[in-house]
């Protein structure tokens, strides 16, 4: 297992958001995490990436315990994420946004910058090349010099994915990447997610409400409800699971999808 969560418990002021969650992601796997609104999916991402500090349990990634690490340390170990609400750097170009991802893979400091050392210049070229490569990969290289937040919504989503890719992750966490996309854009997203895994060997863990997309793209699906894992399996297994059907009962989007 690339990522393994054991008995992860998260509480906010007496409100338990995650109850002893046990969960894993295999190397180079395409896994989805689904569940009704407020189930705790984003909170689980935040526990993995160090934004939330769970009260109990352990999160082991690639042989490292993550539970006490700051978010930037987690990223450096090889987990990249996108945010449920777009979090692009405003007033900066697409390219500059994506260059952010390379920060944790490079080293030049103030001294090197002021004196333009050969190593620093080589590194700057490398950062730019990698960022352009990631933009080419997600298909928006020709928009690299535009201010990121002026792009069409679907393309802003791709900037976020390119930025996450630029951290050279082993595991990528995507929080509702299809939200707000039209059906054509969703099909392109499915292709992109598959290529991230197939061409880059990156494992993907996906939170998504669009069941059609989830069923198409995932090899395994995990279902979270009220902070508890209630089902785990292939798309067909999960679809037929009575507990899953019950959890989604009364939820329009779930009903329509299942």
């Amino acid at each position: 297992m690339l990522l393994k969560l054991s008995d992860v418990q998260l509480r906010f002021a007496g409100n338990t958001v995650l109850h002893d969650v046990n969960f894993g992601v295999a190397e180079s796997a395409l896994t989805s995490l689904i569940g009704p609104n407020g189930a705790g999916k984003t909170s689980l991402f935040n526990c993995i990436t160090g934004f939330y500090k769970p009260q109990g349990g352990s999160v082991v990634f690639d042989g490292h315990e993550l539970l006490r690490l700051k978010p930037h340390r987690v990223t450096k170990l090889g987990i990249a994420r996108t945010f449920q609400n777009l979090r692009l750097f405003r007033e900066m170009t697409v390219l500059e946004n994506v260059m952010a991802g390379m920060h944790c893979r490079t080293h030049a400091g103030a001294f090197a910058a002021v004196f333009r050392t050969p190593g620093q210049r080589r590194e700057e070229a490398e950062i730019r090349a990698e960022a352009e490569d990631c933009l080419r990969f997600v298909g928006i290289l020709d928009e690299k010099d535009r201010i990121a937040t002026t792009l069409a919504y679907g393309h802003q989503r791709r900037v976020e994915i390119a930025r996450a890719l630029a951290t050279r992750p082993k595991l990528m966490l995507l929080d509702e990447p299809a939200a707000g996309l039209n059906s054509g854009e969703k099909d392109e997203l499915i292709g992109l997610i598959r290529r991230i895994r197939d061409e880059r060997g990156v494992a993907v863990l996906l939170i998504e409400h669009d069941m059609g997309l989830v069923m198409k793209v995932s090899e395994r699906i995990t279902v979270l409800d009220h902070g508890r894992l209630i089902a785990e399996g292939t798309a067909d297994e999960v679809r037929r699971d009575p507990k899953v059907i019950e959890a989604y009962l009364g939820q329009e989007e779930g009903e329509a999808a299942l």
Partner: protein
Amino acid sequence: MADDAASRRRRDPAPSRPNTGVAQLLAVFDDPRKFWLAIAVVLVAVAVAPLLFGQYATVILTNALLYVVLCLGLNIVVGYAGLLDLGYAAFFAVGAYAVAILGQQTALGFWAAIPFALVAAAAAGVIIGGPTLRLRSDYLAIVTLGFGEIVRFSARNLEITGAASGISGIEQPSLFGWHIDSPTEFYYVFALLSVFAVIASVRLANSRLGRAWLYVRHDEDAAEAMGIDRVRVKLAAYVIGSIYGAIGGIFFAVNLGAISPESFSFEQSVLILMAVILGGMGKIPGVILGAFIIVLGPELLRDLGELRLLVFAVGLLLIMLFRPSGIWPSRKS
């Protein structure tokens, strides 16, 4: 924190900025030939200014150039990293007092004393910044304000700093047999320092660290998610700012030959901050302009006598009101 489940609205693309007259004027700088021509004109103007104007003007212009260095340093802290520092004059003081004391108490000589002064300022930056940069930025403003006052208070009460009367008889430096002592010579020293300060600022802005400051300033969580250690990056800005301040202080001390605690007052910190905000935080040409306005403004209004500071203050207020993000226009459209 990281995500707010409640707000899952799309963020509308930002409307593009209207093309103002100033922005069109600025388009000149997009042509590299015109850009370098403008730089050349400014450099020539700086070089010939002492020959054109008298001794008095040269002294004032030297002060403006000192402010350029200080403002560019504070600009890294406030403009690039977005940290509010209300006690920046403290670093200016550390640099000035360090060379003055080392000159008096040791046989190091001016040039050998510089590294010690810089290390002292950087250490002060780490001591103040280290614990506070983890906190929210409003705390930083309060802590830096306190730090500025503590430094001045210590300078006024310690024996080694000459208490209230300060330190005088600071020796002017020599470089390869050239004794730097006339106001005109010091003018050129500060002109050179300003040029170095600009080059360093430009290079920092276009570097991995410079971008990291912007990322952290725009969105701390997203920056952390990109693997950026926000505390470390802010500390770097703070320490670099303190080194700029110390360099200004070092040459200020040898230029005047005497320093006293009142040169490093809270008003000094406020004036530097005002120049940065006035010119436009994070914009190097704007900050330079701000430094000149703050120093030359009251001088040019000298004829108004008593009223000049009032007129100057009202003028600043009006500029702030109509151009809240500084005089210098934003380049990106």
